[in-house]
């Protein structure tokens, strides 16, 4: 019997279906794993900060993740690449901005800055393999690994580059303007309250709501 004949029985000729079986070729199974899986990894990045303009460039990226046995390594690398791009976007570029009248001013991809290939580094990936005990394949998630690791890696790299200026925190995204303003403030050259972006009064550094609320860890970002 061919697949076409099987499909014909299942969808057209009910009289040929085996007794007790309903029309259609559908099957539902529910797999309930005994426990969550716990992927882990570490990302290290090197950034250049142009201290004159405040512009941040990512120059090197090394990502080592553990998602258990690699069934398709190319897909794993692709997941990490995409996640890192998202993480870099959040750290350096992406921002939803409304002006003082409530008008969205980042309504197109001209204004809402997603990183493009030009802004992204080559991403060096590697893996350790620690099978999960909670499923028979030993596999663990990888889709979010890059985006979880990338954002703090960038932030910490930039703060590390500016540590000698006494800077311990800058709100995301680290736009050139914000990095420059942080350097100016640290050098005692900022004039008056922080300036506005598109007529919006900015909160003081460290009290912004760039996606994560007030997140100054004890002793600043280490």
């Amino acid at each position, binding site marked *: 019997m061919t697949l076409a004949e099987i499909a014909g029985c299942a969808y057209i000729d009910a009289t040929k279906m085996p007794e007790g079986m309903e029309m259609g070729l559908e099957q539902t199974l529910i797999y309930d794993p005994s426990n969550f899986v716990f992927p882990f990894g570490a990302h290290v990045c090197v950034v250049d900060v142009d201290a004159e303009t405040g512009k941040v460039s990512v120059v090197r990226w090394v990502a080592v993740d553990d998602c258990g046995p690699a069934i398709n390594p190319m897909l794993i690398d692709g997941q990490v690449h995409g996640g890192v791009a998202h993480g870099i976007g959040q750290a350096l570029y992406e921002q939803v*901005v409304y002006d003082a009248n409530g008008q969205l001013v980042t309504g197109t991809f001209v204004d809402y*800055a997603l990183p*493009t290939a*030009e802004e992204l580094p080559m991403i060096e990936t590697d893996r350790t393999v620690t099978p999960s005990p909670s499923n028979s394949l030993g596999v663990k998630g990888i889709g979010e690994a890059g985006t979880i690791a990338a954002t703090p890696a960038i932030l910490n790299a930039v703060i590390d580059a500016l540590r000698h200026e006494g800077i311990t925190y800058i709100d995301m995204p680290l736009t*050139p*303007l914000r990095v*420059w303003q942080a350097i100016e403030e640290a050098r005692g050259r900022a004039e008056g309250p922080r300036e506005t*972006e598109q007529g919006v009064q900015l909160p003081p550094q460290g009290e912004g709501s760039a996606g994560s609320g007030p997140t100054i860890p004890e002793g600043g970002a280490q």
Partner: protein
Amino acid sequence: MIPAEFDYAVAESVDDAIGLLAEGGDDARPLAGGHSLLPFMKLRFAAPSLLVDLRRVADLRGVQRDNGSWKIGAMTRHADLQGRADLGLLGAAAGQIADQQVRNRGTIGGSLAHGDAAADLPAVLLALGGSVVVRGSSGEREIAAADLFQGYLTTAIAQGEVLTEVRVPALEGYGHGYEKFNRRSEDWAMVGVCALVKSADGVCEDVRIGLTHMASVPLRATAAEEALRGQPLDGEHIAAAAQQAAEGSEPLADLNATPDYKRHLARVLCRRALSTAAGV
């Protein structure tokens, strides 16, 4: 993202375009590469009643050397200019416009006629001391770059006129530098500074500096030019002159920059562009 309704006609010659524009009335516009006008129409910032497409007018395309100057057809694509060392600053700046897809379609005439202060070529034309040739039903005239840009997206080109040619002096013996600052490489310039320097035995014989996006029109940084002219072309004198780069500018705040930040960027970029132009 959907433009208002408009009519569309394809011109077979410049005279044909002028006739179609005259018939189309006050809201008819020429269409060049469409990489500024069409996005504006999609955002409803512009709503022309008729577009007169110039793409079939073959004699509007091409680069010719005419004694000491270049004559560039208005429909010449940025991609035709980018990386051409013989075009100096113009070739270098054309290569930094947006991305390759835009450069493959966008034209020098379209960019200049659009008159966007954040675009690369207006300040380049101004620094080079170039001009544009426009033709309308009452004949042809040449408009110097200094007279072309009159305000935000406003040029001296009259309704019904077609920009046909861009003329720039070849400026033999000048070094050039172009510093464009943006968040992403494909973005418009937050600030741009182009510089042309002529050196004579290490002394600045002539210097021209163009500023992008430091006002509603492109500007010359005349104070910085005067500070450097006749001075030794070393790091110290270049840095001192660059401190004057924002004099007379009126940068507007936007999403990514405050006026103070733009003035600061102009000074930094001016020093870098001058250093490249002077080879120091």
